[in-house]
């Protein structure tokens, strides 16, 4: 069960520095541009 405390803890957790090498997942779409955008 999610409690007020748990939400507060989760918010606090977000402020923890991410480990070195952490790469956030890219959004599923659109994909990367291989050459250039026009």
């Amino acid at each position, binding site marked *: 069960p999610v409690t007020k405390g748990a939400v507060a803890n989760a918010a606090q957790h977000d402020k923890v520095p991410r480990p070195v090498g952490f790469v956030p997942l890219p959004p*599923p779409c659109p*994909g990367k541009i291989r050459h250039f955008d026009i």
Partner: protein
Amino acid sequence: VPAAPPAPSGCDDPESVAAAEVAVNYINDHNHHGYKFALNRVKDIHVVPQGPNNDLIFFELDLLETRCPILSPTPLANCTVRSFAEHAVEGDCDVKMQRVDGTLSVLASKCHSHADSREDIRKVCPECPLLASLNNTEVLEAVSAALNYYNSKTTDSYLRLLEIGRAKIQYHPVHSVVAEFAVGATNCSAEEAKANAGACQLLPQDQSNFGFCTAVMLKRPSKDLQVDCQLYGHQVRAPHIPLLSRPGVTYVHPGQDTS
């Protein structure tokens, strides 16, 4: 029986990219005009399960024009994408594919191509040449003169124009026209064609009977005409008439739809 790989979900998933590349090859194989296109971006993908190991995949793809004519035997992987400064042409494609037990097939594709706007190029490169209309009088004059000149110099087959691929006109500092065009070999020698070129028939539509030429026509301050043709059935360029070291400028390209 090994299980089929999971259905693609993200635009950059390896399965999605592999399927998109199959789609791009299909599009190039079914297009008979202009140049080969390369994948620039998977814009969107939707997978609709149809049953066990059976999915429909709907793609939106952004492609970019390469320098390889569509009739060129050069594999797409070796084709250079035209730079932004060359006045890039983009292809927007909707593709419907089916994947059954991991085997992909294209059911339908619909593409629209368009050149980048002149304003976009002018913003970042005021001096860059722009595409010229393919039915521009100066372009037609340059192509006709170049092909006549080539045919007057060659001892091989008389070449006939198939289509103009790109053209550009530069006005400053030198007034020049640069055009690229596809040609087909005929059953006449260039010498035989002098008597009656109209009687010369294109040879069977085998890739070895096609070629591609680039022409540079200088108009002012001095007049000059240079043409370079590569015939796909030949290992060497013949006759070789060198191009200017830095060809001229300007383009305009009509949109092209395929389905």
